[in-house]
């Protein structure tokens, strides 16, 4: 799975993207965050407050219950502030 990070999530994690191999336990966005948060202190810090983390699965906004699979492109970022 390709995972992308934007804005301060990218800065805290220190990566704009990474390839991850999903364990069996990861079925949805919430369990993917559990898995990613354990990868490094930067990941843990980025995902510390999940209320301010937004997600997109295959470039559509997705909530914590949205399913994720190996071939998906999943992105994490703060609430948007364009315009």
């Amino acid at each position: 799975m390709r995972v992308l990070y934007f804005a301060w999530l990218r800065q805290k994690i220190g990566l704009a993207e990474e390839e991850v191999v999903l364990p069996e336990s990861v079925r949805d966005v919430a369990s993917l965050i559990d898995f990613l948060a354990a990868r490094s202190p930067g990941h843990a810090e980025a995902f510390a407050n999940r209320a301010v983390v937004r997600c997109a699965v295959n470039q559509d906004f997705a909530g914590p219950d949205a399913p994720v699979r190996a071939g998906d492109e999943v992105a994490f970022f703060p609430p948007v502030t364009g315009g």
Partner: protein
Amino acid sequence: MARVRVQEAPFDVAAELAALTAGRTDVGGIGLFVGTVRDSAGGRTVAAMTLEHYPGMTERALAAIVAEAQARWPLIGCTVIHRVGRLTPGEGIVLVATASAHRQAALDATAFLIDWLKTRAPFWKHEEFADGGGQWVAARDEDDAAAARWVR
């Protein structure tokens, strides 16, 4: 006709308005909104602002917002341009323009587009302050409230 662009280069408002209504004489009203970089935020002087986006998803999200505006109002033309990269105070960040036979449609569609863009298009602003340091701009409740007006 709709035009959506994400670009680093500045936009030319006059050229965009000309393109919006080119060859059309059935336009009655043109609405435009331009968002610009302010020189201060929270009492601190802003030296620059950097706009980040999600290539691919951002263009899709803008196209979906424009399609929604076209479904809601009878638009003859619709343009959304959003800049990315590093911008300084006074520079344009975003241009939204609509043309319709009717004034209210152009005014409402313009307000709708900027309100929804602000809450639904993946862009993030990072401010650099003149006294050093910087911060990611936080999302504002009033932007959510403005966008919520259009939910139906």
